[in-house]
């Protein structure tokens, strides 16, 4: 029996990825639970769970930015209506509001102005990132079309 050139078993690779993804999801969820419990229920000051908080925000931002840049998040919005885009941005702003609210609950006081600044900044940044990614994609498409025309 002649042996073929070996290829990687993609089913095994998929299962491995799935296991790592699930482990990450468990860890991420656990970090969120720690932040919620320490901030909301125990009313501990932010410095008591600062590490977990930074990890949660940092990981969320990383996922968010990478998904936008690779076109996973936001690609469906390029042809979406204004209402759908607004809904997506509002969801993100709500998430940021919840995050800030939890950290402020730990401090024992709610500063509405600080929350509003963070939420509005978050919304504006989201819109700006989606706009930039759309412009980059449009320019890449124009470049490809121009090259196609030149070749013809």
């Amino acid at each position, binding site marked *: 029996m002649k042996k073929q050139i070996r*290829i990687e078993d993609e*089913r095994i690779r998929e299962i491995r990825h799935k296991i790592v993804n699930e482990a990450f999801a468990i860890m991420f969820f656990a970090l969120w639970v720690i932040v919620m419990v320490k901030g909301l229920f125990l009313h501990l000051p932010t410095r008591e769970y600062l590490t977990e908080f930074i990890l949660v925000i940092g990981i969320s931002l990383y996922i968010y930015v990478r998904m936008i840049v690779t076109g996973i998040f936001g690609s469906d919005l390029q042809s979406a209506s204004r209402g759908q885009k607004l809904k997506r941005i509002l969801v993100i702003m709500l998430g940021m509001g919840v995050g800030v609210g939890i950290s402020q609950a730990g401090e024992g006081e709610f500063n509405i102005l600080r929350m509003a600044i963070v939420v509005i900044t978050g919304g504006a940044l989201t819109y700006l990132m989606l706009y930039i990614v759309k412009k980059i994609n449009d320019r890449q498409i124009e470049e490809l079309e121009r090259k196609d025309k030149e070749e013809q």
Partner: protein
Amino acid sequence: MTVKNKRMKIARVEKDLSQQQLADMVGVTRQTIGMIEMGNFNPSLNLCRAICKALGKTLDEIFWEED
């Protein structure tokens, strides 16, 4: 359990190969070959081509839709 990819199984049996032997030739596990034959796993184009080469058939003959 019904075999969804009958043509692949028939081609394998015609060559007198077990699932393990075909798996060894292609470079995957026996379970992967079994799951492809059952229709429980969608192989990539590379894997489809490797299977076709091992069985001496074309992609159409094994993986195209049956009418």
